[in-house]
């Protein structure tokens, strides 16, 4: 079955279920995925996974209340049961003073994400071959661990009030970590097309990082340093901003760090953060979980806080307009963030730093104080001392505890190059590397 045929079949089934709904208003969100992941460790494939699944969330409104039921079957009988059960569930609830009907459509969507058939249908033998290409670049004395994942997802939103949106996209991602006796290095690449992934080149990047960090120094004191944060670290900051400050629900509840600060300068002028699903580098989809078109959203413009992501409901609570960022019952979050580039290169940042620390990657970061944007975490897979404008040596890992907005406030160099980088707890962002000052290393690890 072609993608178009599959989408039409889904549309037909869902629209039939809505037509047969006993409720006054019905909305159905469907995600269907075929995904595969080849996982390797100790220079061999050790886990190898393939799944086919769906998630169908049915919301039925009776009076001023929504009932919600989720199933993982797209069979007509299962859909009918889910619709009936959701209507029954709604009848049991009290009226919702914040009730909002389903979105009224149809809408036109501004882009179609890329769907690559070879990625959707990538065979395990091909993934194994690609993984072995990466192994060829593993230096002696190092163990490779990582993943190669390929898959396709179909997202659809349909409502009794004219929303009829369905789209499909593919994703391929390769990650590799090389661990040696005294150091490690990591690299990753994400694309809509598996053919765009070059495991050998990515493994080579990880190897260069690992070799450069061999025999690290462990005697550097904790304290505040000038740091160059590479992309993963910056992406982690942006994802925490999204979860604790850029979301409409947190904003409406008064819990966002942007509450009362829209229009205020909160970082330096060199910081602009937007959310733009239409930028192909963010791997975005054209509509949100309510079927609303995803809009380009300016969150911070030259240091000034401009807005947050809204669903129809959070917008209504905040007296704002929806921005097409609903994530269902969890509210609204920007998931396609971009931090604008500067005009430096990584090498220029190093050259301009008399004494500092280069951080390749964070590990297991978490929120210490969401209102003050204080986060903590560790460095991992390549932490380096910079002396007199050069990488002097590798360092063992530090714990950091830092106000992230302050780190952006003090950023004085930003790379011209941006790349999409995933974040440890999920998501990712298109980000440059940045240099900032007085970054707080509050503890040390032993490796």
């Amino acid at each position, binding site marked *: 079955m072609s993608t178009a045929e599959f989408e039409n079949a889904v549309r037909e089934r869902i629209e039939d279920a809505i037509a047969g709904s006993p409720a006054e208003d019905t909305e159905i969100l469907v995600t269907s995925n075929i995904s595969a992941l080849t996982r390797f460790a100790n220079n061999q494939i050790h886990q190898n996974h393939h799944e086919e699944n769906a998630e169908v969330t049915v919301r039925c409104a009776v009076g001023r209340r929504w009932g919600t039921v989720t199933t993982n079957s797209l069979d007509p009988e299962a859909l009918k049961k889910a619709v009936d059960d959701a209507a029954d569930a709604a009848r049991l609830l009290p009226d919702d003073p914040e009730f909002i009907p389903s979105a009224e459509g149809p809408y036109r969507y501004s882009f179609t994400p890329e769907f690559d058939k070879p990625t959707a249908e990538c065979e395990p033998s091909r993934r194994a071959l690609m993984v072995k290409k990466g192994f060829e670049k593993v230096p002696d004395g190092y163990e490779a661990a990582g993943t190669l994942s390929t898959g396709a997802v179909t997202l659809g939103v349909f409502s009794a009030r004219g929303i009829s949106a369905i789209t499909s996209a593919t994703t391929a991602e390769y990650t590799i970590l090389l661990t040696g006796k005294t150091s490690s290095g990591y690299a990753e690449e994400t694309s809509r097309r598996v053919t765009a992934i070059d495991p050998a080149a990515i493994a080579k990047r990880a190897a260069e990082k690992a070799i450069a960090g061999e025999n690290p120094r462990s005697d550097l004191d904790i304290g505040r340093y000038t740091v160059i944060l590479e992309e993963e670290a910056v992406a982690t900051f942006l994802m925490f901003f999204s979860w604790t400050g850029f979301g409409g629900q947190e904003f409406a509840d008064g819990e966002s760090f942007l509450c009362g600060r829209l229009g205020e300068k909160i970082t330096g002028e060199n910081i602009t953060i937007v959310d733009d699903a239409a930028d192909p580098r963010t791997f975005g989809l054209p509509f949100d979980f309510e079927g609303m078109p995803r809009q380009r959203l300016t969150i911070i413009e030259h240091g000034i806080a401009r807005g947050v992501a809204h669903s129809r409901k959070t917008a209504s609570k905040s007296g704002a307009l929806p921005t097409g960022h609903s994530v269902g019952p969890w509210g609204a979050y920007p998931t396609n963030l971009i931090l604008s580039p500067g005009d430096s290169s990584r090498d220029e940042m190093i050259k301009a730093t008399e004494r500092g620390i280069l951080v390749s990657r964070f590990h297991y970061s978490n929120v210490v104080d969401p209102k003050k944007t204080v986060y903590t975490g560790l460095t991992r897979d390549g932490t380096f001392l910079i002396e007199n404008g050069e990488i002097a040596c590798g360092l063992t890992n530090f714990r950091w505890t830092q106000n992230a907005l302050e780190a952006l406030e003090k950023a004085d160099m930003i790379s011209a190059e941006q790349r999409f980088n995933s974040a440890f707890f999920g998501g990712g962002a298109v980000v440059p590397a940045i240099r900032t000052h007085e970054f*707080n290393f509050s*503890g040390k690890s032993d490796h």
Partner: protein
Amino acid sequence: MKELADFFRANAQRTGVSYADIRITGLARESLTVKNGRVDNISKSAEAGFGVRVLHRGCWGFAASNHVNRAEIERITMLAMEIAMASSTAKREDVRLDDTPAAQGTYVTPHTKDPFAWSTEEKLALLFDWNKKMKSVKGLTNATSSMDFFREEQYFASTEGALIEQTILESGAGIEAVAIQNGEMQRRCYPNSFRGQFHTGGWELLEPYDIGGNAERIAEEAVMLLSAPELPHMRTTLIIEGAQLGLQVHESIGHPIELDRVLGMEAAYAGMSFVTLDKRGNLKYGSDIMHVTADATLPGGLGTFGWDDDGVPAQRVDIIKDGVFLNYLTNRETAGIVGQRSNGTNRADGFNRAPIIRMTNINLEPGTWELDALIADTEDGIWMETNKSWSIDDRRVNFQFGCELAREIKGGKLGKVYKNPNYTGITTEFWGSMDAVCNKNHWKIWGTPNCGKGQPSQTAHVAHGTAPARFRNVEVGVRG
């Protein structure tokens, strides 16, 4: 189900693979949230599917589908076999399973009050009542009350002859009070953070927490924290209450003793472990009073079951005794490496994930102290409770935890409240400084329903039995 399992076995045996198993599951979830006097979210979900694991040419292949029928089982089994063949083109060593005998049997989580048989109206009435009590406190901004129920019916069959039917029932509930003023936010949760306390069992296990009876107190504490001083940065004696200590056990003991992590199988994502193979029987993990068990037989624990997803029976194992590290968490694939049979910790997050080593109930066994006596015995120190944030390095050495509330201990008495407390340390130094653990009167099993691991990601439901314990010379009050 039995008929599908028999079909799977006959079909898998015909393919000539060295081992195969199937898990057919049906999962029901119910989640209810009331926020600020209105229903925020009520969702009921039901999902079904199956996953097939094949060991072929010394390698694993796994495939899963949400269509449960004979033709799909046949297709998915062949796909899993094809995946295993692909794995075998990039292998170093063959996977060898241990010789655990194939089990047959049935397990149902013991319970007396099935939450799924309880009406939505009754659940909502309780949630609204908790909400109202919190909102009655002046200065409170947001009040959230929640319940979560989970029932998984699983049918496991293997080509070795295992045939196991299990029904796992889980119940959880909690409240969260948030106070916001002048750009500052303080949060208090009860009985625990992240949607409360979770057990395997029915509602009867949550009743003793008297959530409604604690709602006003929790809201008052959230408001009080706004005007409390910040905990100063210092080294001091620290007494940690049970729920926070549960997460400390989770991150600094539970994860590092997973043998797959020790062997590098998780390196790419969550990291490795400082508890390398040479440490078994040698590492002084903590002080002499430290006794840690992995016990999947513990009634009410979120890591309690009949058999794991290898078909290995639930067990109780000493992990650390007299402060010395003794045993890893193992599965049938890894146990042989340490010369043992699996101790039954291989679990999957649903039909569409292959099982990996997961914590069961990892417990710091009770000590001898009454809590009052322990506080009275502490001249100068800090009490901390309820987790707010957690972070630990990729070998589980350096950790930092934030808590919701701290109290000063002066002259053996609890004193003033501090806000935004946190503490940090190095795993073996920290456990080595433990000089007192409270007794079984203060020991509770704390559910952790959000343990992440694996690629693709899996969320496990695990637990930790703990009582408050005292640690010396701990760094607290780290600032950003």
